[in-house]
């Protein structure tokens, strides 16, 4: 009995299924500037109302694969560039770091803004509220802008009108910020009547093109940033749902993390709610004052970023995985050879092929009493649980560098397409070196 309690989750199947009721708890005390995060398919989103058709799980998984393909292509390109820079490193260290960003290939696709999680921010004077996709896998923040010279997709809120904002201004082509778009977007900026023009293209051909601009950004009443640089999109198309655009939480100097660094010390945190949950948040700063580099917080276990592999994504080192209390027999080299990033926009965790095979095999043994179901897109380990109300599943833990052990929530182990198709929410890469 003790083993079952320690190494298994026993739960009601309904706890994995989506809920239709939004019940946010009263906002508790949270340090820093805190924004509400909602799941786009969850109970608290307002973006799927008025008869809008929510994407199916199969569609979500297809978009997810496009995003992963795009991330992997971009990281591969970056690694190539970083290797090229090694020779220069000894002669001019600072220049080498800068160059490794400046030499990003223009052809690379950026991650697809699948956008499962959304935050609301205010832009302009007077401020207009915008629901933006929340993305740690890209850098530029952009929103659709009037007059939508070429094209805008349908969004829930009114499209931002720069002419109605007293604090809006375009950024000049000759500015340093304009040059910085190359690393933030992967594309060289353009110029129109001395105004800087950005273009950002995603893995599935989604894109946004428009003026690179500045305006007042309001995160909370107390947290207002004059001159926030963002993309004012005049030609936008793709899988952005009814959101107004995207908020880039990556590491590039143009990301919101870097632009608000003076106040928040490049520190942010979030909780992503489940499809039944109502209390997600995105919080900038740690509430301990600015520029706190050695953050310590009760109950938080830390792993160092693996920064050696490039500066766009957030790399971390996975050392091992446990299933049902048993460490899988996977050489740490399997994870080290591939590298791992954490991304708020990718849905399903991708593992090196060998690691996924081991995880799947162990999980199947623990789940052998349940009837199997057909595969669902990239998910190949599925069960028909329609005859069960309560189920028992093995706990899964990740061991990250720095002895950081993280046990996943049951919602992080299984994904449901109804009770008759409940799948292990992991997938393998094509090979160990991808």
């Amino acid at each position, binding site marked *: 009995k003790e083993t079952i309690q320690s190494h298994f989750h026993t739960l009601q199947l309904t706890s994995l299924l989506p809920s239709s009721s939004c019940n946010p708890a009263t906002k508790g005390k949270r340090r820093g500037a805190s924004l509400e995060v909602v799941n786009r398919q969850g109970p608290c989103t307002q973006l799927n109302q008025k008869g809008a058709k929510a994407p199916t799980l199969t569609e979500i998984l297809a978009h997810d694969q496009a995003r992963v393909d795009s991330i992997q292509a971009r990281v591969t390109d970056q690694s190539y560039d970083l290797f090229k820079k090694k020779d220069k490193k000894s002669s001019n260290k600072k220049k080498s770091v800068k160059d490794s960003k400046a030499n990003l290939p223009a052809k690379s696709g950026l991650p697809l803004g699948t956008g499962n*999680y959304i935050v609301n921010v205010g832009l302009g004077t007077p401020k207009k509220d915008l629901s933006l996709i929340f993305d740690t896998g890209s850098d530029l923040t952009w929103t659709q802008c009037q007059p939508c010279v070429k094209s805008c997709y349908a969004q829930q809120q009114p499209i931002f009108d720069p002419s109605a904002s007293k604090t809006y201004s375009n950024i000049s082509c000759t500015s340093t910020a304009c040059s910085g778009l190359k690393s933030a977007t992967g594309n060289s900026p353009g110029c129109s009547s001395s105004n800087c023009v950005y273009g950002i293209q995603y893995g599935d051909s989604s894109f946004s093109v428009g003026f690179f601009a500045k305006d007042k950004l309001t995160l909370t009443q107390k947290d207002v940033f004059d001159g926030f640089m963002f993309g004012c999109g005049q030609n936008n198309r793709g899988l952005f749902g009814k959101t107004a655009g995207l908020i880039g939480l990556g590491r590039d100097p143009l990301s919101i993390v870097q632009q608000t660094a003076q106040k928040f010390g490049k520190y942010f945190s*979030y909780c992503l*709610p489940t499809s039944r949950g109502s209390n997600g948040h995105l919080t900038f700063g740690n509430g301990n004052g600015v520029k706190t580099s050695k953050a310590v917080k009760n109950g938080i276990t830390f792993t160092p*970023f693996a920064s050696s592999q490039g500066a766009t994504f957030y790399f971390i080192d996975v050392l091992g995985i446990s299933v049902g209390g048993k460490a899988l027999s996977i050489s740490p080299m399997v994870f080290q050879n591939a590298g*791992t990033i954490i991304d708020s926009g990718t849905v399903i965790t*991708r593992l090196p092929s060998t690691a996924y095979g081991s995880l799947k095999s162990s999980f199947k043994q623990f789940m052998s009493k349940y009837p199997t179901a057909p595969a669902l897109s990239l998910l190949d380990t599925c069960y028909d649980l329609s005859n069960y109300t309560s189920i028992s599943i093995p706990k899964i833990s990740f061991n990250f560098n720095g002895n950081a052990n993280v046990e996943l929530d049951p919602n992080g182990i299984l994904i449901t397409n109804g009770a008759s198709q409940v799948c292990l929410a992991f997938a393998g890469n094509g090979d160990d070196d991808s």
Partner: protein
Amino acid sequence: IGIFGNIQQQTLEVVYDVAGGQLGFGYKGCS
């Protein structure tokens, strides 16, 4: 490249201490 995706991050408190070069995880971040 492996990717730690958002399904697996659900309900965790995920802390990005970019200046400190570290990523933190805590439990019950949404409660």
